[in-house]
């Protein structure tokens, strides 16, 4: 049988990969994908903990995380489309006109 | 040979048999479509190859295999080949969760009965739905990676249509699941065993007529069959998303379409027509013959509809899916819930 720590380690690695993607990539779509990786890592952690306590609460919170991720992806992509129409670029550095 | 290895071998044989029957189904459907189309149009279909044209699918497949494999220069190398693989893999994999027979001990060969079906999953309805919705990727990737405007338009339209009709499909599924109280297809079929008044079978078709119609319409739209096959309409889009494909990669697309049709018919049989339950044959463990007959009837209905009604225009198709079919499915769901509450069944 697999100890709980193993699942948490996988979740932590996935979360770190997602964070690295958000910081290192300069493409709005890839940044949004990295955020999805982070949310999935959190889901895995919830389900693992829920299983280790023997309840279904972990699974239920996962549904809410998935729903929020879907809503956030939809709105985020809407914003990306609107931004692309203005600057013809998917680079976050192209939208720095309010920077000092 | 002890029981464990015998059981293992028999289960492997069942999986192999299911796969073999699916491939045969796609080949026979090619022939059946052309013959039935021919008879409806007052002519014989293919009848030169083999007796009454029975070997025509063989000729078709050999022809396709010997054609030249083309790939357009600007096509994405990986995705162009990956798209038909995704399509056909999703089509076959979806049938893995569909049970096609009851339990049998193979005339006493086994101690405990084995279930006829590749896998018995307790969320089988969701598994079929999930894997069928993965088939969208095959089409949208085929359209995009071909680097051609007909393909892109066809692929986009096709995938938008498929995801729109998934809503009505899922809602119709939810109504049946509410009636049966379980997501396992085997439990749904077993809830339809028996008869009312001794002769009317307890099919959900009689309890959910609107649901059945919604499911069939959504199934036809999901598999991109007429009258919802505008994305592959020859008159408008050359051949839609598979314009640039040839030979084996092309052959996988219609095969995926026929297997999807078979899976939809099989799931419809399990959900609404009582699966493998029927008079007489079950006593000798031949319930799967009833399953085969019912699936065959639904497939015939698929082909019949294709060559009878004209094609929907794309915007009419989307409007129908969102404005008529999905609200009807939601109403069906609410009515089913009210019915269950009232009768406390």
């Amino acid at each position, binding site marked *: *049988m*697999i*100890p*709980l*720590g193993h699942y948490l380690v*996988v979740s*932590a*690695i*996935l979360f*770190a*990969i*997602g964070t690295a*993607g958000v910081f*290192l*990539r*300069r*493409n709005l*779509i*890839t940044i949004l*994908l*990295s955020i999805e*990786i982070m949310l*999935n890592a959190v889901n*895995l952690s919830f*389900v693992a903990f829920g*299983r*280790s306590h*023997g*309840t*279904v*609460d972990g699974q*239920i919170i996962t*549904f*809410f995380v*998935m*729903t*929020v*991720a*879907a809503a956030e*992806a*939809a*709105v985020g992509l*809407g914003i*990306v489309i609107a931004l*692309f129409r203005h600057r013809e670029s*998917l*680079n976050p*550095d192209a939208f720095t006109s309010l920077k000092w | 040979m002890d029981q464990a290895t015998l059981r293992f071998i028999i289960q492997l044989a069942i999986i192999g048999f299911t796969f073999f029957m699916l491939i045969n189904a796609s080949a026979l459907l090619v022939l059946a479509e052309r013959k039935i189309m021919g008879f409806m149009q007052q002519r014989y279909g293919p009848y030169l190859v083999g007796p009454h044209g029975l070997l025509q699918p063989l000729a078709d497949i050999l022809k396709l295999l010997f054609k030249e494999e083309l790939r357009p220069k600007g096509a994405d190398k990986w995705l162009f080949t990956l798209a038909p693989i995704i399509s056909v893999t999703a089509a076959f994999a979806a049938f893995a969760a569909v049970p096609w027979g009851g339990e049998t001990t193979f005339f006493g060969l086994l101690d405990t009965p084995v279930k006829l079906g590749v896998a018995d999953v*307790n*969320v089988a309805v*969701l598994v079929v*739905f*999930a894997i069928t*919705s*993965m088939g969208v*990727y095959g089409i*949208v990737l085929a359209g*995009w990676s071909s680097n051609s405007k007909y393909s*892109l338009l066809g692929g986009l339209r096709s995938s938008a249509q498929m*995801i729109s009709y998934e809503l009505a499909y899922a809602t119709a599924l939810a109504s049946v699941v509410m009636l049966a109280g379980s997501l396992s297809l085997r439990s749904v079929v077993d809830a339809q065993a028996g008869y009312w008044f001794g002769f009317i079978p307890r099919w959900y078709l009689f309890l959910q007529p609107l649901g059945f119609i919604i499911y069939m319409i959504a199934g036809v739209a999901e598999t991109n069959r007429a009258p919802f096959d505008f994305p592959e309409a020859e008159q408008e889009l050359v051949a839609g998303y598979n314009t640039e494909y040839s030979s084996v990669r092309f052959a996988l697309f219609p095969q995926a379409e026929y297997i999807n049709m078979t899976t939809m018919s099989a799931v419809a049989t399990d959900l609404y027509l009582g699966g493998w339950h029927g008079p007489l044959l079950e006593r000798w463990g031949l319930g799967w013959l009833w399953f085969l007959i019912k699936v065959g009837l639904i497939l015939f209905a698929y082909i019949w509809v294709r060559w009878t009604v004209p094609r929907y225009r794309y915007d009419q198709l989307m409007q129908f899916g969102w404005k008529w079919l999905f609200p009807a499915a939601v109403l069906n769901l609410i009515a089913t819930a009210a019915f269950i509450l009232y009768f406390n069944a």
Partner: protein
Amino acid sequence: MPDTVLFYVFSAVAVGASLLVIGQRNPMYSIMLLIASFGALSALYIQLDAPFVAMAQIIVYAGAIMVLFLFVVMLLNAPQEDAAQWDRTHPLRRSGVGRFGAMLAALLTVQLVWALLRVSDASAVGARGDVAELTSVRSVGRVLFTDYVFAFEATSILILVAMVGAVVLAAREEKR
């Protein structure tokens, strides 16, 4: 024993696919690799006796959200050479900064893994709880609609708001 092997295989696929996701230049490839990663995670959920969550993951994440991403990438069709050039001129890629950051990240990973493996319960995940009840959708539904019903209703409003917002944001401006 086969459970452990499967766990390692699926974890390796999930982690490897995610690494490739953030390393690809072409967003289409990133999306397909992320779908592979989601599939592996779904298998991990099945191992954790959560079949409903596993199927919901495929239906919602791999089947709907990724299709949305795919449509947007196809619609926008940004050229690939620009993307590579943006990554090369990233301020965090100057050589000293990059190496320092990588060292810190490795240090953090080692520390995290050590802490997690020491502190968390060494007993197997499947020790407590009735498997038949956990895998049944009925119990999930019961808890969802009694203990978490407020969150459920609030989420439905959230989806409605997100739907309206996405349509408004992405709508083409009317040319008068």
